[in-house]
């Protein structure tokens, strides 16, 4: 009995086992191979990720809702969705790293693959955890790997500074979270998330205590999703980290944060009214209002501070803060639609943000600069890159018919559906504000003349293919997004 249960559980984490295997191979490579050789490491990483993606898809197909490892993780569409996002984003980051000039002279490519694998395992476990200990542990795995990745460029001042700030901020945030978790443990007498719900329903706790515990826990989660007031590390770290890693933080790490925060609230604070599709908040605190206020601040601050930025990575960092704000709108109402709206937004955001960062990296490879001013006349240096960048930026703004628009619409509708009009109005105004700084880049690319003596930017086959693979969904999902919606809807199911 015991043994079969373990076998079953191991099958359910097959993608992680595949990734771990790839990581082990990479570690062996790190020990055996010459340090100058590293391309093979990427192939191993890519194969590992492809295997994990395949395994995740197979799990999706044969899905039976269950928990594994004695209720430590849930196997459900929600978790699988984020596991998929984890491995796909790491796949892209590996490909990006292969194209990156910054990472070219970095020696530890084998270790890099191993650390990225660790990141993937952490993220996938984060999305599946139904236990406070698991959440803490997987989040730490993800965080520690992120710290290493951010400071990965040896000798590079910016990368190191970013890494130091990141680990200091991150470990303090997680200390707060741990403290909050310990209080929740005191309330629930158990580490399972569902025990918290039971405790809330059975006893009345002082709302101050629950608020403090929630806020402390939220400090850790909010650090990952970059929400105000835990957002200030992000611009510095995003700017200083190597661009592929910045992308990983902006896309995967944020998605992981949303996965865990959604799972946390929907399992521990929210109960479905039996036999209906209607949810109620059973905790003694009005955290929905709290999140709504945070969402408003997050998007506003992100957008406003993005305006005066001169470094495009920094600008995109603020923009990603703003996007976290838009997604938090979905968290400030409770409904199945809201969850699926966030998932849809994350998917869409994945493509457009990855695309924007990728182009930033390609431009940096050639121009050795991340200054927005250097984008002057980019359309003359590379019409293709400029056109793709324009699509990504318009999509980030939320202009139809690009996918970003759909993401915003579903989130806004989920909020309107619950009568949260003021927040939607704030969000719409913010969208208008955001047009300013996105359009500034487009304006530079198309309307300003490049400095004398620039040569056309050559884009290789691999980068071009990567850009196209991101461009197609960004446009396609803007026009034909019903499949995406049904996928998100299906994936919003939590065990």
């Amino acid at each position, binding site marked *: 009995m015991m043994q079969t249960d373990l076998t079953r559980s191991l099958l359910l984490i097959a993608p992680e086992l595949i990734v771990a295997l790839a990581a082990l191979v990479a570690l062996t490579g790190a020990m055996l191979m010459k340090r100058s050789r590293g391309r093979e490491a990427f192939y191993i990483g890519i194969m590992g990720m492809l295997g994990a993606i395949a395994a995740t898809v197979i799990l999706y197909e044969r899905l039976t809702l269950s928990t594994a490892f004695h209720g430590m993780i849930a196997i459900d569409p929600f978790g699988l969705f984020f596991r998929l996002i984890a491995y796909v984003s790491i796949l892209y980051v590996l490909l990006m790293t292969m194209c990156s000039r910054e990472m070219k002279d970095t020696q530890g490519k084998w270790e890099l693959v191993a650390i990225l694998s660790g990141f993937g395992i952490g993220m996938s476990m984060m999305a599946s955890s139904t236990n406070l200990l698991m959440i803490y542990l997987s989040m730490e795995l993800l965080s520690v790997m992120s710290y290493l990745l951010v400071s990965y460029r040896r000798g590079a001042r910016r990368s190191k500074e970013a890494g130091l700030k990141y680990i*200091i901020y991150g470990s303090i945030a997680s200390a707060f979270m741990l403290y909050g978790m310990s209080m929740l443990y005191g309330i629930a007498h158990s580490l399972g998330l569902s025990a918290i719900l039971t405790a809330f329903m059975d006893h009345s706790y002082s709302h101050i205590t629950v608020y403090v515990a929630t806020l402390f826990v939220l400090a850790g989660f909010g650090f990952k999703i970059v929400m105000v007031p835990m957002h*200030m590390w992000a611009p510095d770290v995003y700017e200083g980290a190597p661009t592929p890693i910045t992308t990983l933080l902006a896309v995967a790490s944020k998605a992981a944060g949303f996965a865990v925060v959604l799972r946390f609230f929907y399992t521990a604070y929210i109960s479905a009214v039996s036999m209906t599709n209607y949810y109620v908040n059973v905790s003694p605190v009005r955290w929905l209002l709290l999140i709504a206020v945070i969402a408003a601040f997050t998007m506003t601050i992100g957008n406003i501070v993005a305006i005066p930025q001169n470094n495009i990575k920094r600008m995109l960092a603020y923009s990603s803060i703003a996007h976290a704000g838009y997604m938090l709108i979905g968290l400030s109402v409770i409904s199945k639609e809201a969850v699926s709206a966030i998932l849809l937004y994350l998917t869409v955001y994945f493509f457009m943000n990855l695309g924007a960062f990728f182009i930033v990296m390609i431009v940096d490879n050639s121009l050795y600069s991340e200054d927005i001013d250097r984008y002057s006349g980019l359309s003359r240096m590379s019409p293709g890159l400029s056109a793709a960048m324009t699509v990504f930026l318009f999509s980030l703004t939320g202009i139809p018919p690009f996918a970003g628009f759909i993401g915003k619409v579903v989130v806004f509708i989920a909020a309107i559906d619950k009568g949260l009009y003021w927040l939607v109005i704030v969000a719409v105004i913010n969208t208008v504000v955001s047009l300013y700084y996105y359009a500034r880049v487009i304006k530079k690319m198309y309307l300003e003349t490049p400095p004398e003596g620039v040569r056309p930017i050559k884009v290789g086959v691999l980068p071009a293919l990567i850009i196209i693979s991101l461009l197609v969904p960004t446009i396609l999902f803007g026009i034909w997004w019903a499949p995406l919606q049904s996928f998100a809807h299906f994936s919003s199911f939590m065990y």
Partner: protein
Amino acid sequence: MYPFIEQYVWLVPLLPLLGAAVNLLAGSRLPRHAVSTIAVGSISASFVLTVIAYLHIVSLPADHRQFIDTAYTWIGLGGFKVGLSFLVDPLSVVMGMIVSGVSSVIHLYSVGYMHDDRRYSRYFGFLNLFAFAMLLLVLSDSILLMFVGWEGVGLCSYLLIGFWFEKIENARAGMKAFVVNRIGDFGFIVGFLLLFTAIGIRTGTWSLDFGAIQSAVGLVPTAVLTTVGIMLFVGATGKSAQIPLYVWLPDAMAGPTPVSALIHAATMVTAGVYMVARMNFLYALAPDALRVIAIVGALTAFFAATIGLVQNDIKRVLAYSTVSQLGYMFIGVGVGAFSAGIFHLMTHAFFKALLFLGSGSVIHAMSGEQDIRKMGGLSKKLPITTATFVIASLAIMGVPGFAGFFSKDDILYNAYTSPYGGTFVWLLGVLAAVLTGFYMTRLVVLTFYGSSRMDPHTAEHVHESPKTMTIPLIVLAILSAIGGYIGMPEAFGVRNVFAGFLGPVFASGVRLPEGSVPLEWALMGVSVLAAFSGIGLAYYFYAVDTELPAALAEKYNTAFRPAYTGMYVDEFYSKYIVGGVMGLKDLLALFDSHIIDGAVNGTARLGRRLSDFEGAFDRIVVDGAVNAVGNGIVSAGGVLRRLQTGLVQNYLIFAIIGMAILLSFVLL
């Protein structure tokens, strides 16, 4: 008959879009005949499909003449729905036929007219795009999609008016059209968003489909509906060139003549009228909005006609006449006689397209000359142009038997009897009819008859236009002559086929009083009299006693130089009628020069890229965003940015303070 069309309505706008895509993307590499074949072919195919839709609709019983073709549901979330669905009912099918039919003719005409232009393929691409946007506007089943078409025609008009952007005035005219339309569109957006929220809050259905709006509009309070109606009409004054936003239309003459014909006859300016007619169920519940529309329409009809009296540019005369005739249409829809308004829209499409194409033929023959003081006696050299032009003039003047007579009469009758109209509206309409008779006669006489005032060099080159240009003229002339008979008034003892066909669309609209035959005859008599008095007066001044105006002028001001016979009337009018009577015009001119030109100048600081699209993007989107966002936000960004000191411990302090504030906020 032809039920298959119910699934293929989306092809109607799609075909011109495809044509535009091919011509804009690859047109410069295609031979010219391929470009024109694609352009004319695609729009003609749309016309054929629209006719098939019409035949299908007619074969259905009168109460079921409506179907919706949902090509694609873009967003369908709970009560919120946005998609590509097309509504075919008598109103949209009539509009569709007018738009695609007249557009086809104009496309064909352009083949000859634009033959030597450098940007041939781009021109046809824009023309197709224009037709696409207008067909989208007309056939859409929701205000949102209609708005897409609405913006589309605005954009295309900007592109086409400024088509010859090498000349700075042309570029300016395009810009002006764009800016003025933006002002109107702002009203439109406010209107439909207000409606959207008002309905959504009350019903939980967040839809902008006409069907959904119609079924929910009864729940919305009248005050809201009136505001919505007026805001939507503000949009219509922009698109359909009504007071005070008419100022862009006369300047829009800068574009190629077929474009003027397209804008004035088939697309763009009719959009406002169509929109009001389409929203008839809303306006039926907002009578005050209707009164506003009728009065604005009547004032526009009258004032534009007076301005038309003194214009010397052949196209400007026609431009003001369009503004005036659009005023008539708004009188029609404003007094609740929606089918009369649409009827006039249709007949006007025929004769105004004809007039513009005819004037294009004249300009073509005169090697670009547009001043009627330098024409005269063209009838012998341009027989087909003259004949068709005269037919069109008779139609617009409302001479009995021609198309314009029936439609104008229908409007004036309803203006008199409708509870939303009244004597004032009617009287302005009749006065405008007198003026129409006058300025059109003046135009015809000065252009085609009398002695030639051309300079000899031009006179040598005058020749009739090629067949691709004359055939469209003849087709339109036939329509202008007989097109009115489908809407003969009931006083003639026949059924009004046109009104009967459109009837079901407006069934829930405004109830108008029953007609009385003697009254109708009497009013008809008055309007005929009005038309003929205008014609007679002009004929006397410009053809019979050409000295009289001179004498009159001399009596009042001897400083006039006796340059050309008949010109004294213009001076007289501009001095004593237009200049004297119409303080309002000055006011409007003030509005034009200060607000509109100010806006144009303000947005159009850099002249170099004035016309190409990138320049417009820069100014409208980027600078506009800067201004809208305001310096406040930008400086707020600077202040908040200074908090980002780069010191990680400061960030932590901010996080803790922020959390403490959040805690106190939720606990208090």
